[in-house]
């Protein structure tokens, strides 16, 4: 180390001798090389398409979210008679997120809910969610990835059905509830590519006959920037559902479960983020689209969807570092 300093002194000395000191050199070492700064905008919004991203909104920011999923684009419920699904809406979400701090967000909202009529009849879901950003990837890769925790609780507000085999045959309030616990592991590989892994646990207090209360799933998400304002995003969940329930639903109800896949285009303008997507899942909330997706891309069972978010800065940062 000492020799390095000596070498530097000699170098500086020789610069001096040349009388033309490159002033730039004076700050080469002393200006803090901000390598440990957190990487910004691994994803552009707190959601990819239907799944969460590792991003949170800033302190005192309020995010207004509207999400929409239309009916089947093709297949027997699509085509021109429903104007490629635009006549129908399978699910709608309206919600607000709020930044308690830059790392802790809470949110409330409601979805119409997307009952498929076989393994789920629940609709009118009110949710509360919380998200905590635990780790942030740094520019010098001292921290190579970002880690965010997510959880929600949803309550179905629908009228109870008099059918015990249905998941809407509630016998008490607790039966209306379902929960998501999720870890979001994300990495921005380059300015143009970000990927996320989302190990997820789904708990539904009351499920239809032969369905499972507890379920694990692994989400995979990605974003590829195509221009400074546009990116292609995708999310996919591998759902670990027991073979016996799959067999039961297939044999008894002629009903198949599918893994939800979404592909979309994300457009950002100032405080807005628009997301235009195609998904096979009909539902928007994790509590439904992870355990209950029953339409498939191959039979025209995918739909157009969009989400619009608008960020409001409720309180400006005071120039506190004065």
């Amino acid at each position, binding site marked *: 180390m000492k020799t390095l300093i000596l070498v530097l002194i000699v170098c500086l000395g020789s610069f001096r001798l040349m009388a033309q000191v490159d002033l730039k050199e004076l*700050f080469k070492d002393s200006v803090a090389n901000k390598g440990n700064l957190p990487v910004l905008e691994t994803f552009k919004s707190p959601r990819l398409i239907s799944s969460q991203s590792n991003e949170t909104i800033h302190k005192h920011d309020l995010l207004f979210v509207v999400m929409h999923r239309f009916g089947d684009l093709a297949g027997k419920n699509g085509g021109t008679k429903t104007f490629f699904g635009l006549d129908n809406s399978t699910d709608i979400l309206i919600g607000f997120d709020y930044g308690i701090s830059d790392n802790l967000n809470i949110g409330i909202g409601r979805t119409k809910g997307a009952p498929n009529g076989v393994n789920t009849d629940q609709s009118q879901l009110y949710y509360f969610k919380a998200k905590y950003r635990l780790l942030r990837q740094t520019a010098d890769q001292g921290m190579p990835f970002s880690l965010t925790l997510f959880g929600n609780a949803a309550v179905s507000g629908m009228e109870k059905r008099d059918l015990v085999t249905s998941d809407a045959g509630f016998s008490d309030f607790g039966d209306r509830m379902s929960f998501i616990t999720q870890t979001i592991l994300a990495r921005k590989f380059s300015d143009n590519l970000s990927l996320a892994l989302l190990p997820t646990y789904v708990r539904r207090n009351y499920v239809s006959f032969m369905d499972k209360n507890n379920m694990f799933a692994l989400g995979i998400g990605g974003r590829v920037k195509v221009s400074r304002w546009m990116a292609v995003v995708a999310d996919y969940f591998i759902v670990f559902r027991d073979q016996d329930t799959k067999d039961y639903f297939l044999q008894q109800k002629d009903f198949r479960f599918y893994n939800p896949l979404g592909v979309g285009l994300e457009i950002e303008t100032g405080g807005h983020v628009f997301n235009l997507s195609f998904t096979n899942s009909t539902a928007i909330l994790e509590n439904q689209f992870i355990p209950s997706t029953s339409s498939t891309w191959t039979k025209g069972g995918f739909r157009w969807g969009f989400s619009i978010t608008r*960020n409001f800065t409720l309180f400006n940062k005071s120039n506190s570092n004065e």
Partner: protein
Amino acid sequence: MKAGLAMIILVFTTWTGQAQILSREVVISFFSEAPLEDIKSESKEGVSAIDTSSNKVYFKVPIRSFEFEKSLMQEHFNENYLESSKYPNAEFNGTIKEPVDLSRDGTYPVTVQGDLTIHNVRKSYTVKGEMKVRGGEITAHAVFPVHVADHQIKVPRLVIKNIAEIVEVTINATYRPDPKQMN
């Protein structure tokens, strides 16, 4: 280690007759006035140096150090406009045109000519400013316009009413003789 090295540099410059004067008290701010909103931002992390023998001046500021009132705006400034992960600093290399004697107290109107590099795009500027010398302490002040398009900072049409085409940049630097102030 860094502090030690800086000290050595400082000591060295003192030995050689203080031909270079350093400053770590550089406040750079900019102001954008557009129909829908006014945006102002400030960085206090700039650095500067003057070589009194050659009249050369140097400024450098990390893009990430600019603070905005709205955090999301700050993020967009770094990510979408200045692309600070690729181009982390803005730099200016120039020369004071007039002969000035910075060892004497007084107020000197100066013209600085040189190259400003923002967003990795270099452009030549001639900026009028003022330098004040009082008891060995030098302060420099300048205000000049920057056309964002000159530095290939693209503003999408949808937010053209939020971001001005020309932003006003203000620089205030203080160069102190006491080396303790420089770290």
